[in-house]
């Protein structure tokens, strides 16, 4: 693990053997790396250097406090207020609001657009994230015109705050193997013992996630935590 994910510090020179080389694709730099012409690649943050030789890309994985929107991110936004053409919503607390056009919902026209109250949560995708500009989000895929699971979230529910790094680990396609987060699978599987859909379950899931994030639990620790939470719930 330690060898294929080396720790880098800002300004450090990266060992050339770590930089992937691919005959066809150009090298793609992700967050936390900066290209200084002609040929230097310098990390700008401290974190784990991750490389993908297939896609010929590399980036630094780190756990920051502030969410910086980037295009394509799926986010949970909270409506602040409505203006003539768009809703203003917050992606993270105490940052500049993002805009959500009234017509950026599935089959929305001027007459059928959804009416959202301030405080309502919407599940949205970031479409515009430029520096020094307010970000823009949408609840419909521009290509297909379908919601694809995005849209306003109705009914009582809870959003649990976790760190950004943890959220990214959860989003990994194989989060248990690559990210080391298996609480959700455990709760859904045998250890969970068939949780019913209730407020109690939501609380247990939220606590499991937050505790795993806070204490940085490994797989064994997560298994113990899930057992403890399920026992408490009964």
């Amino acid at each position, binding site marked *: 693990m330690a060898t294929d994910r080396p720790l880098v510090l800002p300004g450090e020179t990266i060992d050339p053997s770590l930089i992937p080389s691919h005959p066809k694709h150009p090298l793609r730099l992700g967050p936390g790396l900066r290209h200084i012409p002609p040929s230097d690649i310098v990390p700008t943050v401290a974190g784990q250097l991750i490389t993908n030789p297939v896609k010929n890309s590399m980036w630094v994985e780190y756990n920051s406090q502030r969410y910086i929107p980037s295009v394509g991110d799926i986010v949970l936004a*909270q409506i602040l207020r409505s203006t003539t053409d768009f809703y203003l919503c*917050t992606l993270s*607390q*105490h940052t500049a609001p993002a805009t959500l056009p009234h017509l950026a919902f599935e089959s929305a026209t001027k007459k059928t657009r959804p009416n959202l*109250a*301030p*405080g*309502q*949560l919407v599940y949205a995708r970031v479409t515009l994230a430029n520096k020094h500009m307010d970000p823009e989000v949408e609840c419909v895929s521009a290509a297909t015109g379908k919601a694809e699971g995005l849209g306003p*979230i*109705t*009914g*009582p*529910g*809870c*959003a649990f705050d976790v760190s950004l790094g943890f959220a990214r680990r959860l989003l990994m396609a194989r989060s248990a193997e690559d990210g080391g987060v298996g609480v959700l699978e455990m709760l859904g599987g045998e250890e969970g013992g068939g949780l019913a859909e*209730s*407020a*109690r379950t*939501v*609380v*247990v899931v*939220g*606590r499991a996630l937050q505790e795993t994030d806070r204490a940085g639990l490994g797989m064994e620790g997560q298994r113990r935590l899930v057992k403890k*939470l399920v026992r*408490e719930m009964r």
Partner: protein
Amino acid sequence: MPREAEPSLNEKQFVTQALQENLRLDGREFDQYRPVELTFGDQHGVADVTLGKTRVLAKASAEVTVPYADRPLDGVFTIATELSPMASPAFEVNRPTETEVLLSRLLEKTVRRSGALDTESLCLVAGQKCWSVRVDVHVLSHDGNLIDASCLAVVAALRHFRKPDTSMEGGVLTVYTPAEREPVPLSWLHSPFCVTWSFFGEEADIALLDATWMEEQVRVGSCTVSLNKHGEICQIAKLGGTPVDAVVLLQCTSVALAKVKEFSELLDKRLAEDLKRRDKGGFMAELRAENDR
């Protein structure tokens, strides 16, 4: 000025609904506090209270000043609270929010007006010289229930504090350094603690202890009871909100007494531990020059 971030509608509904099902977001009982941590600094009079994610630091200090003209026999005792932007971006320096004003008023009523500190003992020369004791409360992290945490921190800091020893000889006042004479503790009469209840539901029939920030945003009313371990109530503050049944309030006060006894025990225990830590084994051991090589 940045506004306080609000939880979303969905979350508000969820918290209320879960409370109807006897469920809190962090899985606690309704009358259960988050784990309370109390540590003292290296200096005398520094107390650090952690209540879940809420963290409050209180520092007591003393200086010699002139007493107020209308109270020549009393010392000066002030509590200064500061909610810095570190705790939440909604707080600004030099612009007190309602939370801050309420917090300082409640601390003032609980600790100062209840006569916990004997201010007459702070007088050095009547009408000319007295001690001015000041406690600074710094909120380092805000996750609800600032009042209880701050009150515990203030009382702990004052009980831990030592002021320099003084003597009067022939009209000359001498203040001794810690090297000359051991500093002396304040003349402390009783230890009041705050216990804050938050009320939920249409008729405020659900009462919660130690509400988190999220619960504080959803509650319909709150009530702070200050009392000491003997059950002597210093103040009850129920500032607005939905009216609460008298029977519920009575139950709240009796539970509050049990909690205050726990706080009191915790503080006594931590003070004793700190004393033991500082005790190097008597005067001779303290003067010893050799090191433990």
